[in-house]
């Protein structure tokens, strides 16, 4: 995944993903219902300390790097699904993506699958 994909609303900053992964791991291991076998293989304090380190490192890097983390969290992009971070030039790559890129062919098999799906929904 490139960091310059036009129209993407997912953050580009690798530290954002590390942070979210760390929080997800902490949510899993720190939960009240942690799997018993995981406790033996992975002491609870190790997950907490590594997650805390990752969070602290992210915070330090964000402070040192100015508004990198803040920059990808524009209020508009956060609040409005589908919103793009900024205005696009008329010849923006996204427009070319939308208007000019070839489609994957919708084959007869694909249409049959869609029809089957509709039948199931009914």
């Amino acid at each position, binding site marked *: *995944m*490139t960091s310059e*994909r*036009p*129209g*993407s*609303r*997912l953050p580009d900053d690798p530290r954002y*993903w*590390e942070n*979210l*992964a760390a*929080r*997800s*791991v902490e*949510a*899993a291991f720190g*939960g009240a*219902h*942690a*799997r018993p*076998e*995981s406790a*033996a*293989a*992975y002491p609870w304090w190790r*997950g907490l300390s590594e997650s805390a380190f990752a969070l602290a490192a992210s915070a330090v890097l964000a402070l040192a790097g100015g508004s990198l983390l803040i920059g990808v*969290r524009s209020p508009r*992009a*956060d*609040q*409005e*699904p*589908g*919103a*793009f971070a*900024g*205005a*696009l*030039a*008329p*010849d923006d790559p*996204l*427009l070319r*993506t*939308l*208007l000019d*890129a070839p*489609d*994957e*062919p*919708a084959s007869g*098999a*694909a*249409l049959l*699958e*869609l029809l089957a*799906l*509709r039948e199931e*929904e009914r």
Partner: protein
Amino acid sequence: MTKDSDVDGLAALARDGDARAFEALVRRMVRPALATAWEFVPTREDAEDLVQDAFARAWRELGRYDPARPFAPWFFTILRNLARNASRSDRRWDTVSFTDDVVMDAPAIMEAEPDPVERMDTAERIRAALDELSPMQRACFRLTVLEGFASAEAAAMLGIGEATVRVHAHRARKALRARLAELRGETR
């Protein structure tokens, strides 16, 4: 996204209690997880909460995961179920309805302005055009075209067939082309 074999291998190790494998699995899956979650909830913060809940649930229930089968569809089923359950208690969450031909209401900006096409900038026009797609078309288009996931990946994320993803993305692009035709006329 990562090769499925890598993900499935990590999932099998995690199922046996290897917490480090689970950590690696989370790192591999976190981006598609957020992309999927955001199709169901209105803000990125809501999507992040959903992702964390889904990984926590997956860790607790890994004993039910069959390592002979792909991990991604199993995980995304958990995530979608959590989204549906949460949407019942939070009306802000407009859970995607995976039925075709559901046309969303035009965004408010289209109704408030007497000549909205002239007044909207390019990004707003594109966003408005996306909002007019059905939830399914929008999700398939956004995941495959804008976010760059393969059709097979998007299929696992949304719990539908790969060919169905392609059909919806094709229809979305066709609708967007029509909606944005006036913009193309202005610029070329």
